[in-house]
């Protein structure tokens, strides 16, 4: 009897069971239970079977997964750090010093958090590069795909990642933090019309102070992580809805062209979704024997490897490099040079390059270098999937011939960004003068 209830006894009375303590909802029918399982996102992280092509590391390089594990790592270490850090102008610096010297594993925790944050910016960026170069933002052969949307979600996540890193940068309240955020928010000021207001809202005033610290703290610990977690869930859900990675579409396309033997079909009688005669459903566009493996353990084992490698690598880097902490923030003393966080240094470099001096006149490059150029880049990146006219055969493959031009432009921009970042990070000294790595900066004099 399909309508038979699950939690009623023979007499039809509702019984109180231990289950009621942990489950707020009891499905009334097997069909309801089935629906619940089908709808549950957590139970559908993994497909039943994955394409071998999708889990080949030479295709995805696991960059998205690495980003996700880094985010997980950051969340876990971040929650512990929240117990130890005091977001006040008077106490913030001291609480970081305590982490460094007095708290068990404090130095390691902080270094792990910091290094993971830097690596996450890199991993998310490289993930974007990978997706572009493999044409993975393009729809393939499956129905109802919307990979363009997922590409835009990814871009949003890249921005949120940068914001997360930037807001975290201020929290130690040392000179590095204070002046990096000063430079960063001064660039925001160059936005036409709204710039001053944007900066005011971000700082909670006209200067970086306790108001700024608490704003950045709440953004960093609550708002942005939740936003990123929501976007990540959406992003991953879309990956499943789009039929997995784009590499699988490529396999399906190849299958079609070589007119493979008919793939087996399956009859859905599961979970009571349908009773009586069931429809025959073609379960896969690709031959499972040749191209698919069960997700457990095939995918699971590799995810574990990636997670462990990510953890081991970040931990080793954390021990080796530590996390920097400069002198306490001092609004009266500007370090020379004052640099934004490294991932914004291409912007700072652009601002410098586009600042033009004509005699006594100075045209500040903040608008061109700090707002217009990055704004156009972002717009172009969002529009890229719609501008791409190549066919489905260019989906899910590295450097497809049909996308040669798009890949070329994209790579050129990436290389330019990286070069500018490297120059800004390693080759700029006092007064933003250019120094080769083998040239010594002028010595920083001491008091005594």
């Amino acid at each position: 009897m399909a309508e038979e209830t699950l939690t009623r006894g023979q007499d039809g009375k509702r019984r109180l069971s231990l289950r009621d303590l942990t489950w707020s909802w009891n499905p009334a029918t097997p069909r309801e239970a089935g629906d619940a399982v089908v709808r549950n996102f957590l139970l559908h992280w993994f497909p039943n079977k994955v394409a071998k092509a999708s889990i080949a590391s030479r295709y995805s390089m696991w960059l998205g997964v690495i980003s996700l594990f880094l985010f997980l790592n950051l969340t876990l270490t971040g929650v512990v750090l929240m117990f130890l850090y005091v977001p006040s102008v008077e106490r913030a610096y001291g609480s970081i010093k305590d982490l460094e010297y007095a708290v068990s594993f404090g130095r390691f925790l902080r270094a792990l958090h910091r290094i993971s944050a830097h690596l996450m910016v890199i991993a998310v960026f490289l993930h974007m590069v990978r997706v572009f170069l493999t044409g993975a933002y393009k729809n393939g052969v499956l129905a109802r795909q919307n990979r363009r949307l997922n590409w835009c979600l990814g871009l949003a996540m890249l921005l949120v990642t940068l914001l997360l890193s930037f807001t975290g940068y201020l929290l130690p309240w040392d000179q590095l933090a204070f002046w990096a955020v000063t430079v960063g928010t001064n660039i925001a000021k160059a936005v036409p019309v709204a710039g001053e207001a944007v900066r005011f809202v971000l700082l909670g005033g006209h200067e970086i102070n306790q108001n700024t610290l608490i704003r950045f703290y709440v953004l960093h610990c609550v708002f942005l992580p939740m936003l990123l977690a929501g976007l990540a869930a959406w992003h991953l859900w879309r990956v499943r809805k789009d039929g997995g990675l784009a590499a699988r579409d490529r396999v399906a396309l190849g299958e079609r062209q070589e007119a493979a033997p008919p793939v087996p079909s399956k009859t859905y009688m599961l979970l009571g979704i349908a009773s009586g005669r069931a429809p025959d459903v073609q379960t896969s566009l690709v031959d499972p024997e040749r191209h698919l493996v069960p997700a457990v353990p095939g995918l699971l084992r590799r995810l574990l490897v990636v997670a462990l490698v990510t953890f081991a690598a970040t931990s080793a880097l954390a021990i080796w490099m530590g996390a920097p902490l400069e002198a306490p923030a001092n609004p009266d003393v500007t370090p020379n040079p004052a640099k934004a966080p490294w991932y914004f240094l291409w912007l700072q470099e652009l601002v410098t390059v586009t600042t033009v001096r004509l005699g006594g006149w100075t045209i500040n490059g903040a608008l061109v270098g700090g707002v217009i150029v990055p704004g156009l880049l972002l717009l172009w990146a969002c529009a890229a999937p719609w501008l791409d006219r190549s066919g489905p055969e260019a989906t899910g493959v590295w450097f497809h011939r049909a996308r040669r031009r798009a890949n070329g432009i994209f790579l050129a921009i990436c290389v330019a960004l990286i070069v500018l970042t490297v120059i800004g990070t390693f080759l700029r000294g006092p007064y933003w003068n250019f120094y080769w790595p083998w040239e010594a900066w002028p010595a920083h004099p001491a008091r005594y």
Partner: protein
Amino acid sequence: MFRNDRILLAATALLALIVCVVVAWEDAAPGYERYQEEFRALVAERLGPERAAAVPTGLQQIWLEEAARVDRCTSCHMGVTWKGLEDAPEPFATHPAAPLAHHPIERFGCTLCHGGQGYATDLPDAHGWVEHWEEPLIDKKLAEDYRIRDPWAFLQYRCNLCHRFDREVAGADYLNRGKRLIQDKGCRACHVINGRGGAIGPDLTRVAEKGPEQYDYSRLTTLPTLFGWHLAHLQNPKSYSPDTVMPEFGFSTEDAQSIGLVLLSWRDTRLPASLLPGAILRDVPTPEEAERERVMRHGEGKFFVEKGCFICHDVSSFGIVSATKIGPDLALAVEDAPRRFGRTVDDFLMNPSGTMAVVLAKQIPLTTEERRHAIELLEAAYRKHKENQDGSAGK
């Protein structure tokens, strides 16, 4: 392709485990433990095993809530407050007693006076001769570097962070000499110092807040530091800033060192007033109030104050003012007593009636001798009252 996955998983798991072990190992052995063991052995040898048992273990710190500082120096410098280790080697020696008498360690800690990084628990971070720590420990090497005769002279600049408004600080010879020179040579003719002075030279009140990178060291032959620049510049201003109008005062090396140390100390010190010398944290009477109190305590009518009569009575001609004014002005007692009680004041005081009988019996017991003295004083007060009256009437 998948056969290798298991081996890969096992290998990465092992790698992660190794990393965890390294992390745990890095955290497990703090640097101060070795010193604490050495200190325990030293105490056992010199002061006996019972005292050694009382040597604390683990991280030691002095938390200065008022100054918002924490000093963990005593994690290694364990003998600071122990008696009997005066000649022990560092880091175990007893601190000289004199400075600690006025600066108890639990209120002032270590780094306020000595410099160094109180947060840190290992070397060289704790001594602060590291990047990004701007107040390193004052050590003897500094005196050697700048050829200062007194090996601890440099510490005196730290004294002046708090004692900058004191003319003399006991034991701080360089400081006192520097301040005297600053007065004698009339630096204020050109420079504002602590809010007073001329406008020809720069304001020196916060001169040490100016970053060392803002000075030009290109002409300097000695150490290119802020202090080195001041030493050279004080002795020979024109050689180090050619456009200056600052005259050459013919300062000796020691003069320049003294003034240089004072200059080094002129910066913001953000400490609560309770830790600063000379801060007035009590209710100071005005000169008029102080004079009034002196007249009451030590004037002609001090008898009435000592005995407590003034609680209820004014003695106006002697300048004694009662806060309550419950009873009549005693300056008029001579004419007041007959009017109120029909008796002379001496008779009344010898055999009081009414409220005064109770007061003189219980609260202010007076001997016969004292009563006679009181009567004399009351008569004197009345005479003075009359004189005052005549004086003001005559005018």
